[in-house]
């Protein structure tokens, strides 16, 4: 052990004291619920049959992981996540470029572009639902007398549309911050070096703003994987459009099955952790707030 001066010790103690309140709050609102759900997931615990509560080990996990409904929901969730994040990235990048290059009415354009993100998701989801309703919906009528929310493919499309509509501005905002990191001189140098606009974008801009793109993708992927509100309002998970969060809700809240429901939420937690791990370790995304990359 190194000798530590009194001043340093006092500084450390102060540091601990300053961190303590936040740490306590985190333990109360994050660690405790997580540990409690893990504990619940190891039990047979159905509120309809409270007397049959008992410790069953990993039996609930076996039940969920061999269940086709779970895997369908998992597939739907993955599909929605991948498709909507890809579309969001492309559109968000386009929007970010437009906003970055805007010369007139900058503030106004940026504000207007952010409106969808500012609208409460449930409210937006309801307006989408009415728009696609087979009797009153103006969008449904555009496609003839159809009921798109009652068909699996079209319903998934509408869910993705609602997700994309809501989060493209958010994506654009994150990407715009990344664009600001690309020095103007670098793009000028690339044009002098003979790059076409597309080459400037792919060979200079994208690599330089890669950290920002990865952070944006990470945020959005984690968010999209937990999709719930849009599905809840638009289809309630009918026609096999439910996500894993919908399944969890159905078991935990509607079905009152605390054991299986908790198992599902723990599985979602694990999936999200794996996604984050892949992003950070494989793609090298910097953890938010930690600028590890060298300029």
């Amino acid at each position, binding site marked *: 052990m190194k000798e530590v001066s009194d001043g340093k010790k006092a500084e450390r103690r102060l540091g601990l004291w300053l961190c303590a309140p936040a740490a306590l709050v985190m333990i109360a609102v994050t660690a405790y619920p997580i540990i409690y759900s893990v504990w619940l997931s190891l039990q047979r615990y159905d509120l309809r049959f409270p007397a049959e509560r008992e410790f069953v080990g990993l039996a609930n996990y076996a039940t969920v992981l061999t269940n086709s409904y779970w895997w369908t929901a998992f597939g739907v969730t993955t599909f929605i996540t991948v498709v909507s994040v890809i579309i969001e990235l492309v559109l968000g990048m386009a929007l970010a470029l437009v906003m970055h290059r805007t010369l007139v009415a900058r503030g106004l354009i940026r504000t207007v572009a952010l409106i969808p993100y500012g609208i409460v998701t449930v409210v937006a989801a309801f307006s989408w639902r009415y728009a696609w309703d087979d009797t009153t919906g103006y969008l449904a009528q555009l496609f003839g007398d159809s009921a798109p929310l009652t068909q699996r493919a079209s319903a998934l499309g509408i869910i993705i549309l609602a997700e994309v509509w809501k989060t493209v501005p958010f994506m654009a905002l994150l990407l715009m911050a990344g664009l600001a990191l690309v*020095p103007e*001189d*670098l793009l*000028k*140098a*690339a*044009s*002098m*070096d*003979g*790059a*076409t606009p597309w*080459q400037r974008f792919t*060979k*200079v801009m994208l*690599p*330089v703003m*890669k950290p920002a793109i990865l952070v944006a993708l990470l945020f959005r992927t984690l968010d999209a994987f937990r999709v719930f509100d849009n599905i809840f309002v638009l289809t309630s998970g009918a026609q096999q459009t439910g996500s894993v969060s919908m399944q969890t809700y159905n078991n935990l809240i509607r079905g009152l099955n605390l054991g299986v429901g908790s198992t599902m939420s723990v599985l979602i937690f694990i999936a999200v952790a794996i996604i984050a791990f892949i992003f950070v370790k494989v793609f090298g995304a910097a953890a938010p707030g930690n600028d590890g990359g*060298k*300029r």
Partner: protein
Amino acid sequence: MAEIVLDKVSKRYPDGALAVSDVDITIADGEFIILVGPSGCGKSTTLNMIAGLEDITGGELRIDGQRVNERAPKDRDIAMVFQSYALYPHMSVRENMAFPLRLAHVDKETINRKVEEAARILDLGQHLDRKPGNLSGGQRQRVAMGRAIVRDPKAFLMDEPLSNLDAKLRVQMRTSVAKLQRKLGTTTVYVTHDQTEAMTLGDRVVVMRGGLVQQIGSPQALYEQPVNLFVAGFIGSPSMNFLPATLADGQLRTPLGAVPLTDRIRRLAEAAKAPREVIVGLRPEHFEDAALLDEAELGAGATFTATVEVMESMGSDKFAYFLVEGETATSAELDELAAESGSAEMTDGGAQIVTRLSAASSIKEGDEAEVWFDPDKLHLFDPSDGRTLTHSD
């Protein structure tokens, strides 16, 4: 290799501001030309117009006789070195230098050969696989040069390429840039705000001010025959001293006393229809400590006596600063120069005269000293428009 011609090239921004106005420069094949001037004089805009990074709103730009106004930068076959170096941070030194060649679909072997060759010339051999982030300022600067030379372009454009280096390295790199240019013989346009760089590097120097070309000429010509107050004050370090003066009876009445006009100056001033009130310009190096000169030399010049305010010894010579009572010379050009150098607020009752004396001088701070100067070396300017009255072609 190419000849670059700027034919009445102008740049007017959409808001009406005129950044560059009717610039006429013919840059010969292989020439090293410097655009110099204070910030906002339009030198960088001019360079960017040659590069194609800014649209030309008036006039014509020709490279090798062909109009290139409408060509994209990539189609002009010109390489540029930026003040910030603009190296691609995600690419290694090798990839940075190879980038323009890869875009031009040059085959791999040729790329490798050219990159290795450039690395050898610029002494970057052992750094080829490092990222720019791990290089020193001087190394980055050389990579930027390397990226320009691998392409063997028609011309190099350099936008203050040495400004981000520390003073010592800057002097070193200045010599290497000059040597490199001579070796490659590529037409080079170099922008700087530093008159020392301009004087030491260029075959010819273009002095700009407020979007207008003031004078184009060899460094020596700019120094000896400045066409106006601005060029006279901008070129030379320390800069020329300016004093108000009155021309009368073949004499020049100045705050330094009456100065006899030499025949040469008198003839030039008459030919230029000099007004009565003029501004006289004297370079610091045309003064000398009178105590060091013999009678004959003293007789050939004029002397004045004043108190030394500050004495700076540079080793090789000494700078003595005098405060001369009386009015200071005023003109728009001089005000601008003063603002540029930040010395606008520093004049306190009277004109300051900077003299460069021989190191052998024993004058000390606070001394009342007699200083000699050569009246044939003085310049006269018209205070109303700044033009020189002593220009001889």
